[in-house]
């Protein structure tokens, strides 16, 4: 049979638990803040390349055509997989240069 901890020891354990909770909460907050700062940093980095983004952010008709080709294939029941699952048109389009760029 073990002896019950004294009231002073229990109080001490509670304090330690509270300190631990607070530390965990702080760590969570710090992780959140760190993640937020990383996001902001990534956004600023992208904006530093605004020149490049403005030069390339335009309609690529070859990719649009590739997209609708895939949709037609899908409609004709040729077993085209859904978007993202290595779509044939996507692969076709991937090899093309931006025809309007």
């Amino acid at each position, binding site marked *: 049979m073990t002896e019950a901890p004294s009231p002073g020891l229990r109080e001490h354990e509670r304090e330690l638990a509270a300190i631990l909770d607070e530390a965990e909460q702080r760590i969570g907050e710090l992780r959140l803040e760190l993640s937020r700062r990383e996001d902001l940093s990534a956004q600023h980095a992208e904006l530093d390349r605004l020149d490049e983004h403005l030069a*390339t952010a335009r309609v690529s008709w070859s990719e649009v055509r590739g997209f609708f080709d895939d949709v037609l294939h899908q409609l004709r029941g040729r077993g085209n997989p859904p978007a*993202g699952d290595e779509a044939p048109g996507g692969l076709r389009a991937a090899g093309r240069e931006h025809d309007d760029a």
Partner: protein
Amino acid sequence: MTDVLPQASVTSAAPTAPAEGTKRLVSPFERLGLSGRPLRTANWLGVVVGVYVLITAVELIGSGFKVATGGTAESLFAFAANPFVALMVGVLFTAATQSSSTTTSVTVGLVAGGLPMSIAIPMLMGANIGTTLTNTLVSLGMVRDKESFRRAFSAATVHDFFNLIAVAIFLPLELAFGVLQRSSAWLADASSGSDGGFVATIFSGLGTVVDTLTEPLADLLAWSTSFLPGAWHGVAMIVLGIGLILAVINWLGRLLKVLMVGRAAEVLHASVGRGPLTGIASGAAMTVMVQSSSTTTSLMIPLAGSGTFSLKQIYPFTVGANIGTTITALIAAFAFTGVEGTLALQAAYVHLLFNIFAALVVFGMPLLRQLPLRGATWLGNVAATNKLWAAAWVLGVFVGIPLALIGITTVL
């Protein structure tokens, strides 16, 4: 046609060396061997000439419309007397030209030439819907990666949903109460004419100067098509004016992107991490700088697709782009003076007020604000799973429904 060059082929003053093969903006004058200060001067002169030609072309359209209709302007646009058809004309024309600025500038010219405001207002609203096609088409290019496509398509269609909801609210209000027609008329009266006070005096004086400067070229262009008989002369003037506007909007966009990229980056950097109002302001400011909402909204698609910017961050930016793009119609309105000037200015104000009211009501009301986000998120999810949804959306909203509505109304 291109205005970009591989980055590796040019020298750059950028602090970090760009990756090989990346592209950068190139001014048309750079191809002539200009660089440094002479290049910058040439670019700005190119902008001035572009604005001059834009205003002249709008003036040509106004005159051409008068010649073509012979004072009965309603007759040429009788097919668009139904506001839904006029709306769809705006959607189709903007989708075809991929430029809302072209539609609004042409509309301003037509209004000055006698097009009834009741037809012009739905056309201007349609321009808002049609212009969203461009960034939606850009997002289709990201279909290779499912997750990127989901984010990119959502970012593109949040603009679609916002503008569709705005039209769904304001077109019925316009038909019932003439909200935009009345408010724009009041604003146009207050800022033009001889009895409108200080602002009107400034606007009127500016309009007279611009009109005097652009009149010789407008007359020359009108004369160049005068060999055509009667109404065909007017139609040729309109077609020439539209062609010039299309070319000059493209020209201005290319030059302004080169000239304003640094300032635009500063504006965007300052808005990162701030609230939605700053997002709206930065979207508007950037669109004013490059004179194209299609450019600013398309710019955000790869940034959203990569996951760097969230849908919630993109959304206010696109709302701001709607407001910023109205500057082109306001510039175009300076092509006219007197009564025509007041009407042209009123049409430009319709576009401005519609977009401000839409931002206040749709974005300002928490319940409505969520609708474009929810719609775009849902559509992005289903389109990423099955591309048929994306195809149906693009063809339905921008081609099928407009053509069907025009066809049905014409037949009935």
